[in-house]
């Protein structure tokens, strides 16, 4: 079938509008949203399965764009005067992310099953994010990429601003303006590439063909401009300050999507665009990337250790994990060995399962207890056995317990780092110790130990996880476990694109 990607996007868009216009009551809105979200989920699963089996159709291109190396490639003319086309395509790098997005939107809708404030707009916004993020992962044209990249900001800003916590107004504007400004810098980089390569066409393929020939200074400037845009989305220190506020103030479904996929946009952009289109620049800035990555990992972890707010702890841990992803990318660029890139991608996916689950559990805690303050908790395992169980499970997953997905990723990234940077890897490995420390300590303080009655928290009306929350968690755990014990599911499709990216980097 042709144009599957467009169908997926259009289905989400139509569904989003339908939910906003026709979702008069909460129950109509949520059922409609759930059913609508299953369509892109099914299509994305189908496309991922075909890619994993190696039998995905190649699609069609439009001269001179051939679409080689991509599946489900489609090309529609958009602005011929500037050489801009609507080009979509998936490969091993983007298909798992594509699938993850649809999965998280569905689970987000499921998790927010008892949302009562403006439910039609809430679920409509979730579906709108689906459109925008899927568009980013599938785009193979720089202009189109940028359009979808910015589009992700609007529903997220509304989600934070309308349904968020106490400081939601500040968090929403900070998130919006900060990432908007950084994306504009990235846009200048795209423009530079467009004119400097002289292709008069914005497609990745054609620009990549001309990008290797650009001069050293040009490539460094381009990479820096692109890196600023991507690094803010990662986010890595020092461009990370929007994330704690945005994550903490967002409603749980919003945090799920924010942590699960929006953060991955930065890493994906760096791998897909930053590395192949400014290879000399990428190689030149490897030391910078290494320093920033390690700084993020350690700085974020240390801050986690002193957090009182559970959700804030999980938010900072995301920064640390994305630092690890950047480390893997830097290692691969340094050596030309795809192991780091594969590990980075694996981590993106693993974190995309684990972090949303942790945020969901924080949401459960906040909802049930009315607080996320760890010092106010204690011995919750007695009252909330299932919540405690899942929180421990996902904390273990987050710190990299073997058998679960994050371990595979961490192993690959650290191996690649050792190969690339030698003994410096031991500095990076401090992250393992810190992450274990903050996860376990927080869980221990909150769930184990003696149960302490506190006046601020109402323990008599608590309830454990509800069925819809449990369903979401179980599904995420299944994936975490599956990728943890059978990593081949993912690494098989990652290797070829990773090698292609590194070939573009190395060839320069």
């Amino acid at each position, binding site marked *: 079938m042709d144009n599957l990607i467009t169908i997926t996007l259009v289905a989400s868009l139509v569904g989003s509008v339908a939910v906003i216009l026709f979702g008069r009551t909460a129950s109509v809105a949520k059922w409609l949203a759930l059913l609508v979200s299953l369509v892109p989920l099914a299509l994305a699963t189908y496309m991922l399965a075909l890619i994993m089996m190696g039998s995905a159709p190649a699609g069609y291109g439009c001269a001179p764009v051939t679409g080689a190396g991509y599946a489900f490639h489609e090309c529609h003319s*958009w*602005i*011929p*005067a*500037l050489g801009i086309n609507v080009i979509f395509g998936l490969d091993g790098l983007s298909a798992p992310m594509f699938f993850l997005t649809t999965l998280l939107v569905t689970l987000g809708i499921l998790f927010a099953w008892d949302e009562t404030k403006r439910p039609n707009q809430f679920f409509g916004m979730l579906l709108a994010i689906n459109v925008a993020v899927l568009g980013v992962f599938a785009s193979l044209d720089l*202009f189109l990429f*940028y*359009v979808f990249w*910015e*589009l992700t*900001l*609007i529903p997220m*800003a*509304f989600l934070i*601003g*309308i349904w968020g916590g106490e400081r*939601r*107004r500040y968090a*929403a*504007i900070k998130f*919006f*303006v900060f990432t*908007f*400004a950084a994306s*504009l*810098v990235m*846009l*200048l980089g795209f*423009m*530079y590439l*467009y*004119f*400097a390569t002289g292709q008069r066409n914005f497609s990745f393929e054609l620009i990549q063909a001309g990008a290797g020939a650009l001069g050293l200074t*040009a490539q460094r400037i381009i990479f820096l401009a692109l890196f600023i845009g991507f690094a803010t989305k990662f986010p890595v220190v020092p461009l990370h300050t929007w994330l704690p506020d945005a994550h903490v103030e967002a409603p749980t479904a919003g945090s799920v999507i924010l942590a699960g996929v929006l953060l991955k946009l930065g890493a994906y952009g760096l791998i897909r665009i930053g590395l192949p289109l400014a290879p000399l620049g990428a190689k030149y800035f490897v030391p910078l990337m290494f320093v920033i990555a390690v700084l993020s990992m350690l700085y974020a972890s240390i801050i986690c250790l002193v957090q009182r707010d559970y959700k804030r702890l999980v938010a900072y841990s995301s920064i640390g994990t994305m630092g690890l992803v950047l480390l893997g990318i830097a290692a691969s660029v340094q050596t030309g060995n795809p192991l780091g890139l594969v590990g980075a991608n694996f981590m993106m996916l693993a974190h995309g399962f684990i972090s949303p689950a942790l945020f969901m559990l924080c949401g459960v805690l906040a909802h049930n207890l009315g607080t996320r303050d760890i010092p106010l908790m204690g011995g919750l395992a007695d009252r909330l056995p299932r919540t405690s169980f899942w929180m421990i499970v996902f904390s273990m997953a987050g710190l990299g317990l073997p058998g679960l997905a994050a371990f595979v990723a961490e192993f690959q990234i650290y191996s690649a780092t050792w190969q690339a940077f030698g003994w410096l890897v031991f500095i990076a490995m401090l992250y393992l110790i810190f992450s274990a420390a903050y996860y376990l300590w927080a869980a221990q303080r909150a769930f184990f130990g003696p149960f302490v009655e506190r006046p601020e928290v109402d323990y008599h009306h608590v309830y454990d996880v509800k069925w819809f929350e449990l369903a979401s968690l179980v599904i995420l755990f299944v994936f975490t476990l599956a990728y943890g014990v059978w990593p081949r599911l993912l690494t098989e499709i990652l290797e070829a694109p990773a090698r292609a990216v590194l070939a573009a980097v190395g060839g320069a």
Partner: protein
Amino acid sequence: MNISPDWAALLPMLVLTGVGALLPLIGAFRVRAGWLAGFAVIGLLVAFVLNIATIWSIPGLDFMPHLTASGPAVVSFELLELTPFVVLFDLVFIAVALLVVIASPKYLKRRHQGEYYSLLLLSTVGMMSVAGSRDLITLFVGLELSSFCTYALAGFHKTRKDSSEAAMKYFLIGSISSALAIFGISLVYGLTGGTTFDALATLWSNPLSTVGGTTTVGRSLLDGHFTIGVFVWVLLLAGFGYKIALVPFHNYAVDVYEGSPDTVSGFLAAGSKQMGFAALFKVFLLGLFAVKANWDIMVAVIAVVTMVVGNVAALRQTNIKRMLAYSSIAQAGYILMALAIGTPYALAGGLFHIVTYSFMQAGAFVALAAAATWGIGESMDDWKGMSKRAPFLAFAMAVFLLSFAGIPPLAGFASKFVLFSSAIQAGIAPGVTGIYAFTYIGLAIAGILTSAISLVYYWRLIRVMYIEDETESRRVAVSSSAGIAVIIALVATIFIGLFPAAILDLALDAARSMFTAVALAGS
């Protein structure tokens, strides 16, 4: 039907003049305001279609001359011309006038509206004369025609103090700016004996020649010669700069936009400002292109200062009209970037931004007018919780605001993209030396930084509408005619954003036609 090109090119203006002249007459017979507006709309639509017929072939309208980017201009009685550049501006002026006229009947709340529509239409005729002028006197006459009509329109809320103040301020400042412009034009006549754009170009393409027997003028000003020639373009820049409300000529504009009736503010911000740009582009590109090296950095500095001042000042505003006024000043800074860069692609970006900006700006003011018909005021506090009181209006306003900021996939992003990319293109072109590369790249960076800043105050209004709770929960139904105007502007903003190819092609053609004329003028 075979009409000579002379008359055919004038046909749209003649239609509008005719309708505009008849309207006060008809209005004297106590006709309902809606009918008057309808008559004006018919006239505007006829003019619109006639203009479109010059660039697309519409069956039955073959008597309109056909224009191409590289073809010759269609000249009308040696005074006015028709090129794709002119047609683009004419379409913008007529479209803005349409939006304003459609939104006005219920907003104005008075019985005698014939003069109002007449003034709007005649002002549009003046704007079209400016765009289509072939020499400086025609340009000036058109400028004055349009300005005088708008002075009266600004004071149309006769019982309100701020409307009279706005009219007075506008009249005084406008007259001063016209005086500056005519002084510059008179100098051109004195130096060259002519007032055509060709004469202006001749003034500058002859190095160190004695022209007119009185003064020596030189191509390069930077070698220390104090020549009268400098005054020419400084005065013209100042005269038109007041119209466009560039910094430092912008102060009056904020008060004028705030005090005028909402629909008139929309007309001023989306129509008069573009007329100033038409004049500026014509004079500087047709007349002064040979000495671009003398004025382009200064124009770039003015553009950057305008962007910065406009956006930063808007941050403090709590009145929506003042915020929109400052934002329109900032948007003028972006358009001016096109002049500073001076390549065909940059000019196309400027023209494209003129089109998109006119729709957004007119739409925003018309939305204000629609809210005002139901007693909702112009300060941000009055708009709290609009998304619950008037969901469609809030949505439309949110779209316009996001488009101003340059969020894809709206029209504002498409045009800003072309503008900023033209700056990058000029900055990295091979052979561009230090100060120029710095200037062009600096323009792009200033553009994106100010766009990011602007998002702060645009988002503030969106937040007030969507996140804050309403102080009054009365649901508001938007009056039908203003709602139609808002819908048109909204659809245009979204459609041009999603499918920019058509308007972009028109802008590229218009830019190429202008540069064809530039090449002819310089030779």
